């Protein structure tokens, strides 16, 4: 026997309750992810955030609430002086340089891969060459750069053999330049992949349509290819910016000094200096800066799309 459902009881798609019911199913599906993210991401972040308002003591932390840590980070404390903000800006500057250079290197490569390499065998080969570095662990690549650009590294001994120790070339050693070079190499493959992903999906007939309307190669690139690949560029750049300005391993290995980057200072607060509250405060100031940069780039990208 069949039962007729009165129409009033049928789910109505314009009824907001209906949507809530639907999304509840999604909630249960997503529960494991929420749990995972909560346990290993949100809670640690929350603890660090709380801690950044507490006081360091000789053996640990006193839960006295104050903004002293932030004052110190922002250079408003007489005691410590202004050491963190300049380092923070330097880290962001290095991150921005790494992002700019790896974008500049990655875009032509991704473009070549997507449009110019016609034979699929060659494309696979080139693609693999780009991806191979990603198979090695990050630490390994950082150490490789230490071997090349670090103290007593390949580059240094080559300079001394050639008698070029005191030329401009030796500026490349243990310097910001070395850090930027190493990190650019580390992040470029990643940028290639994100940019290639958007270029590959760009419909070929849009490029043809542009040329068909009398627009030459360069203008077609500027008016069609570039704007449509922007989401990939922004995604890759945001990632690279966040990771490189917050990095401390590669800078430590090739940079010579141990406190070049803000992350090195955070690292030492949690290690040698044993001042977790201050370390947390520095971390959150860095996070805030990066979040602002991400927000600006996202807004700029949206604006560009209109």
């Amino acid at each position, binding site marked *: 026997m069949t039962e007729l459902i009165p129409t009033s009881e049928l789910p109505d798609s314009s009824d907001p309750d209906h949507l809530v019911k639907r999304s509840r199913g999604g909630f249960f599906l997503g529960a494991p992810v929420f749990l995972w993210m909560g346990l290993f991401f949100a809670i640690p972040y929350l603890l660090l955030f709380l801690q950044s308002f507490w006081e360091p003591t000789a053996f640990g932390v006193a839960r006295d609430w104050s903004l002293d840590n932030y004052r110190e980070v922002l250079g408003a404390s007489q005691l410590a002086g202004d050491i963190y903000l300049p380092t923070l800006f330097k880290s962001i500057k290095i991150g921005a340089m790494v992002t700019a250079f790896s974008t500049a290197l990655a875009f032509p490569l991704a473009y070549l891969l997507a449009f110019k390499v016609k034979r699929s065998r060659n494309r696979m080969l080139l693609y693999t060459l780009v991806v191979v570095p990603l198979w090695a662990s990050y630490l390994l690549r950082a150490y490789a750069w230490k071997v090349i650009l670090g103290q007593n590294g390949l580059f240094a001994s080559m300079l001394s053999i050639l008698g070029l120790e005191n030329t401009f070339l030796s500026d490349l050693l243990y310097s910001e330049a070395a850090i930027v070079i190493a990190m650019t190499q580390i992040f470029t493959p990643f940028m290639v992949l994100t940019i290639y992903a958007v270029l590959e999906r760009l*419909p070929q*007939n*849009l490029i*043809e*349509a*542009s*040329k*068909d*309307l*009398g*627009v*030459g*190669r360069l*203008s*077609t690139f500027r*008016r*069609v290819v570039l*704007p*449509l690949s922007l989401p990939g560029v922004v995604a890759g750049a945001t990632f690279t910016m966040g990771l490189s300005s917050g990095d401390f391993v590669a800078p430590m290995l090739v940079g010579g000094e141990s406190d070049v980057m803000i992350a090195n200072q955070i690292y030492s607060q949690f290690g040698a200096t044993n001042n977790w509250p201050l370390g947390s405060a520095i971390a959150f100031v860095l996070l805030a800066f990066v979040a602002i940069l991400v927000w600006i780039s996202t807004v700029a990208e949206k604006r560009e*799309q209109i």
Partner: protein
Amino acid sequence: MTDAVAEKSQDRPVETGSDSAVSVSLRNAVKRYGDVTAVDHLDLEAKQGQFLTLLGPSGCGKTTTLRLIGGFEELDEGRVRVAGQDVTRIPPYRRPVTTVFQQYALFPHLSVRKNIEYGLKHGGLNRKEIDSRVTEMMGLMEIPEMGDRRPRQLSGGQQQRVALARALVMKPPVLLLDEPLGSLDYKLRKGMQFELKRIHREVGATFVYVTHDQEEAMTMSDRIIVMRDGQIEQDGRPKEIFDAPKTSFVADFIGDTNLVDGTVTDSRDGFVTVDLGALGRVRGTSEAGLASGERARVSIRPTDVRVIATKGQGAVVTDAVLAGTHIAMKIKAGENEVTAHVPRGSSPSPGETVLLEVESERVRVFEAESE
């Protein structure tokens, strides 16, 4: 012809060819993809202002032919001329042709207005002229209030109009259209066919139109080129192609037809008599130069068949369905089955024995296909 196009073509030498009325021509064009010869020694010529349709089954090389004219594919052999100039080695952005793509190819990141004015920005027009041309074109396409929308916020039919507007606003002497109505529903397609015809009359450009819909080709074209395997099967006015197909392929492709194989028994004065076995003998016109004893293929249009009820021997009606204004009837005689479209009312019903009649002038006889 117009300023934008003049801009586009200014750095090319203007030859005045012997016959300036020829707008597009392909000479001995060959295009291969690996083993596939997509366009096979094709000769094609479109007169200025003509509505020329390339018609043929899927994969016969229609799109490739258009792409050769548009400049998106390079010829392996032969030459292309557009508006009196040899453009064989000229890139697409300097050819005086504009294409309406099969999938519209609208720029997703630009508004409708920006899409339409896209090509004009490089034409040396000032802002005011561009604006007035775009506005005029949006009016012509009946999409005046959609300028700020993005392509994805439009229906298929509206996107189609934007694609047309974007091409037409360039005022090209030659417009290439690749199945532009392919993805529209029946009613919208009929409406757009009418519109396209009107636009063609108004702008006076040469239209090279691709379709695999024979009905569309018949109603819209000044001339139809039927293609098969990269070659031209027949080239002529719609009526010629319908009434006097040169091959059984064309007869089959253009409108419904019955194709029946038989043996030639007599041939004189352009008329050929063919023995069709159980269907009897039929006389028809032929240009194939067939001699007695040769195999032949006969084309009889269902609308030309008269069905007469009879007692005694004959063909048998196996099926009769009402198809709108007529009755579609299947008649079997031995191995052969024939479809006839007869007026409603007087017709015999299934199971009855009938005689078939057809006028010799309406029957076409071709060489048998060797397959």
